[in-house]
């Protein structure tokens, strides 16, 4: 029987621990958007979106939607005190100008050097870039939240990305349904494993070799 992997929500929960108080954070589409549900009460993280808003609140419930207030994924947001609005051009000036501390992005593949591929499946022919390329070069820290393997159970952590790149050497941490892996100068370092998974089992589903962190541990949420 296949071993149980962590859910998308648990990946998001683990990523939430990477967002320090006061950080300006941009969440990409997919698993990353779930992260805002798992911040500890009282966290002062400030969310930034390419749609032109800073400091937005949780997602709005059906019936409480304001159709003028969305994040970049098109989800409706709640009003909170302290929001500010600006054009998308300024949203990207903030990103390039070094004002976004962390971005959490989904990925199709991440290489052992931290190259990121997340915008195009070559067979589709036309990709979706959105804000990911600008975030990959502009955000101070890029965290990837993704499933460890693709739908055919092939590793998404690879030596070299086969898919077109979104950014080069930009990813610093990868959180998957099996592990937390750091992109270090010498390659990938396994820091945490999902409950009941051994380092060897994670390695078997990972392209490049994983160095073991001296304090390698089971993932804590």
């Amino acid at each position, binding site marked *: 029987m296949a071993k149980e992997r962590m859910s998308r929500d648990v990946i998001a929960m683990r990523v939430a621990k990477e967002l320090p108080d006061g950080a300006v954070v941009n969440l990409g589409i997919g698993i990353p958007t779930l992260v805002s549900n798992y911040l500890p009460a009282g966290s002062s993280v400030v969310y930034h*979106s*390419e*749609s*032109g*808003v800073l400091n937005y609140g949780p997602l709005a419930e059906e019936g409480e939607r*304001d*159709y*003028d*207030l*969305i994040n*970049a994924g*098109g989800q409706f947001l709640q009003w909170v005190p302290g929001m500010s*609005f*600006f*054009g*998308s*051009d300024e*949203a*990207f000036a903030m*990103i*390039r100008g070094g004002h976004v501390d962390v971005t959490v992005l989904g990925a199709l593949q991440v290489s052992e050097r931290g190259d990121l591929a997340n*915008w*195009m*499946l070559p067979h*589709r*022919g*036309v*990709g*979706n*870039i*959105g*804000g*990911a*390329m*600008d975030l*990959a*070069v*502009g955000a101070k820290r890029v965290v990837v939240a993704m499933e460890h393997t693709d739908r055919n159970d092939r590793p998404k952590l690879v030596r070299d990305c086969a898919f*077109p*790149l*979104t*950014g*080069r050497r930009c990813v610093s941490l990868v959180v998957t349904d099996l592990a937390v892996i750091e992109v270090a100068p010498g390659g990938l370092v396994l820091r945490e494993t999902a409950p009941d998974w051994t380092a060897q089992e994670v390695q078997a589903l990972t392209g490049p070799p994983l160095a073991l962190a001296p304090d390698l541990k089971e993932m804590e949420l």
Partner: protein
Amino acid sequence: MAQGKIYPSAASAVADVPDGAVVMLGGFGTPGLPQGLIKGLLSQGARGLTCISNTCFEPRADEYNVARLVENGQVSKLITTFIGRPAQEVPALDLWRAGVLQVEVMPQGILAERMRAAAAGLGGVFVPNVYGHPLDAGLEKRTLNGVEHVLAPPLRADFALIGAHRGDHLGNLTYRLTQRNYNPAMAAAAAVTVAEVREVVAAGGIDPERVVTPGVYVDRLVLEEPS
């Protein structure tokens, strides 16, 4: 008949968009999307358009966005950042595969900066290089402060169709929440800007300190028709 910048209908405000025009369409999803003007362009029927729009999602049943113009065969080139959700098979993809539609996908930040360059009369702007997109190959590169940059050329349009919240008779505009998105940049980057607003007020009806798009960028104003 238009009275100054105020046009009586969306149809009248886009009546002179010719075949082959370059048209920017504002909006990020639904906020700021000039749906009445897009409807007007659909019935007006101009063809061979180059349309510049953040996304090209399949519209909801009651929604009018650039995908309607694409489906209607009016667009020969689409410049966008996001063509449709990954699992979505959108008409734009079919038309691209059939060789009928040119598609240029570019990063949102570069798209916005190219509009700003056009708006400000710059010859282009050096942006930190992003990789893999169509601009990466053909553009002048320069290493500045140790980082590779590309010279992104200005992006201009013949017409910008934008959505805003309130406009006065001089064309000064305000926006509400995330309605702003690309609209101010597009307004400033086009030869003729048409704004669709929910409320038209006399000059002085907007606190001048709150004007986001100054009227100098806005040529025509129409009142959004209730859906």
